[in-house]
């Protein structure tokens, strides 16, 4: 049985989550915390395998708890569970040391898998989250280059095109029109002073936008 610390200031949500976890039959909630301090104390005081922590909590917030735990209990994998789906939170959480990130909304479908995965020592990230992190890394390591002048969406389109996705696939991935994808492609070519998809691929590989 995987021993779980569950920290969420909303008792109703906590109840729901606890139910999901315990129904899996492979893990049990051994500690519950309505705020950051309690969660931190439990994490240090009790034998816990995985900590599931909400970001928005009164007092010490989730991100701070993660950061502290990273310091105090570096071996304890932490899964961030949150209402927010903005990638900024995701990036902060991973930066702080969280091993996974799940929105509360998708908890019924993903929470158990996520706990299992991080308990096994891997990260748990959705495709969207992975991409967001990847793009963040690309941007951060390529400041003061033409890449800086690309918008997030342009970067996304460039990356997928470089990975060999078709306009159609890209349109589906981001839920936008095929024409729009073409517009973005055209802007990217112009901003980077490139002529076609082949040059774009070469540019992406050279600048480590994609793993070969």
């Amino acid at each position, binding site marked *: 049985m995987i021993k779980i610390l569950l920290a969420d200031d909303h008792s109703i*949500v906590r109840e729901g989550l606890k139910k999901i976890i315990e129904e899996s039959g492979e893990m049990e909630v051994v500690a519950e915390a309505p705020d950051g301090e309690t969660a931190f104390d439990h994490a240090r005081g009790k034998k816990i395998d995985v900590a599931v922590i909400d970001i928005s909590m009164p007092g010490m917030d989730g991100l701070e708890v993660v950061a502290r735990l990273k310091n105090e209990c570096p071996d304890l994998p932490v899964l961030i569970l949150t209402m927010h789906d903005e990638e900024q939170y995701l990036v902060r959480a991973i930066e702080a040391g969280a091993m996974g990130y799940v929105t509360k909304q998708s908890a019924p479908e993903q929470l158990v898998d996520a706990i299992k995965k991080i308990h096994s020592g891997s990260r748990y990230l959705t495709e969207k989250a992975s991409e967001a992190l990847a793009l963040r890394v690309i941007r951060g390591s390529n400041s003061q280059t033409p890449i800086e002048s690309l918008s997030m969406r342009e970067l996304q389109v460039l990356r997928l095109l470089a990975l060999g996705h078709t306009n159609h696939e890209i349109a589906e991935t981001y839920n936008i029109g095929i024409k729009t994808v073409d517009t973005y492609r055209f802007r990217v070519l112009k901003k980077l002073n490139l002529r076609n998809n082949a040059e774009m691929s070469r540019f992406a590989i050279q600048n480590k936008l994609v793993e070969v």
Partner: protein
Amino acid sequence: MKLRIIIFVLALLAFLSASTGGWLYYYSFKTAAFQKAETNTRSRLELIQRQLSTYLSEHIKSIKALTNIKECRIALTNPNLNSIKDANNILDNFNNALDIEVTYLLDKEGNTIASSNRNAPDSFMDKNFSFRPYFKKAMAGNSATYLALGTTSKKRGVYYSYPIFDKTKTKVLGVAVIKTSVEFVESSLFSKSEGILLFSDPNGIIFISNKEELRFMLLWNVDEKEITQIRESRQFGNGPWIWTGFSKSDTGYITDRSGENYFFSSMDMANYPGWEIIYLRSHKDIDKLVADPFIKVVGPIVVIISILIGIAVFILYSKAVGEITRRKSAEKELRLSEERYKHIYNKTPVMLHSIDTEGRIIRVSDHWIEKMGYEREDVIGKELTSFYNKNSKKYAEEVIFPEFFATGFCQDIPYTYINKDNEEIEILLSCYGVRNELGEVERSLAVSVDVTEKNKTQMALEEAKIEISRYSIDLEKQVAKRTKELQKAKDNLKRLSENIMASQEREKAAVARELHDHLGQVLTALRIDTVWIKKFLSDVDNNASTRAEKMCSLIDNTIEDVRDMAYRLRPRVLDDLGLIDALESMISDFEKRSNVSCVFKHINIPPITETLTTALYRITQEAVTNALRHSSASTIEVGLKMEGKFLILTIKDNGCGFLVMDENEMMHFGLEGMKERADLAGGTLETFSTPDKGTEVYCKIKIDI
């Protein structure tokens, strides 16, 4: 006219003094010349005297020698043809050898027995010269010399005689005589001398002279008795012996008949007792001798000096005339000026007065009289201070008068006059001191300006000024008060605006939190349960499971809506993660919803206050919204950076742009709102836009790092 005479007299005096100088010079020159002439005359006379003396004694020895020759004695003792002939031969030889005029022998009766001129027409042969003194003297045994006019030859001669003795040398046999001419004396000795040279006998008969006309004339006037004696002596022919006209004056000078003066020098002659050699020199000649060269030399000088004096006089005269004319016109001008001055003084319509050193009025202008109401004769001679009031009088006597008479100047002295009607007239007096030759102030020229009215006006003006200044101060106070009030109101408004915005923001945040935390959580919990139900029903009732799934999807949509609503009200990310994350989130959200390329660049942004975070977020939100809504841009770039202590936020698009001047558009684009936010945050916001060139919103806020 008077000056002309003076100049003429002066010129005359100058001429006279020059002339006198010349004359004195001439006189002294002449005196010297006279003295010199006198000396010359004397020395010359001595020379001639010696020569004449020699000449007149020349043959004394010769005749003695002749008497010793025996033929002469023989002829006298035994006069026959042979002895006479021998004697004549001797006489001829003698005559020739000594170059004598005539040599002859006289017997003891005085008859000529032998003569060298026996063959001449005027032969002395057989002539008797026993009357001659030289014969008588020789017969007495003495040697003799004698001067006389020849009775036979009618020639003047010098006679040398010597007795011829017999062998025993005791008895005189006869006399030998040599007669030499005196023509030589005149032709050589006397001829070279200027003036008159005379050789006269004791009676004054002129025997030898360089002037032919004077021969045998009487030098001095003598009486008849003496003339008779002269005739009887037969020494100088038969006469007549006319007086030359010379006479001795009382002053010692010799004057001739015409009154002309002569120098007179005389010397005795040896061997000729009573005879005198006389030198007469006319003063006139000497004068001429002196004057001629003098006139030749000095004359032109005198003429030149005279001409120069004349020219000088002429020039001086012209100058003097010019000067006189100038002075006359100057005097006339002065007189006119004086009259004009008097006229101006009296008629100038200001109060003028003059006082003397005693402080008494010596002159006043008509205006003064008019103003004071007195008659002129009431005023002149009165003390000026008697027209002053008490204070002015004291002030004048103690302070102003001493100062004025020392410096000769004073200006704008305030006095008060009392006029005849006993009214006070306030004046300002300025005064100038007229000085005499010694530089002392002897009288004043003063101008009094009536300032009674002016002073009144001045006082009124002064009061008005004080009043105005009081008003002005009041006004300023009021303005300051109002300004303060306005400022306070403005501050209040600003604070209010700030508060409104802050509370609005708070409200939004509260609502958003409520939506997100409460409704969102509930919906989440609801969804968890719905998913559970769906799972549970999937095996039991397919229909119910589908309904549950639809429910789940509805919940999902609701959660999205709630999240959107909350995000629009106030994104949590702004409070949780800060401005950068919030802006990143916002911009990627805008991009997702618009298909416009939105880029956010940021460098080294320090932590900033919540208020500022909100302001910058809202400004960016407004600007990007505007750009998306109005610009048709394909790219929007948001930049955030630090420049020194300033945080610079820029929102640039490449859209159509607009005219910044158009206030309606500014309002429309919510630019005023952005500006206000920037202003409340303590910064500035500017919008740069050009049609077709895009728009840039530039916000600059100072922050304390």
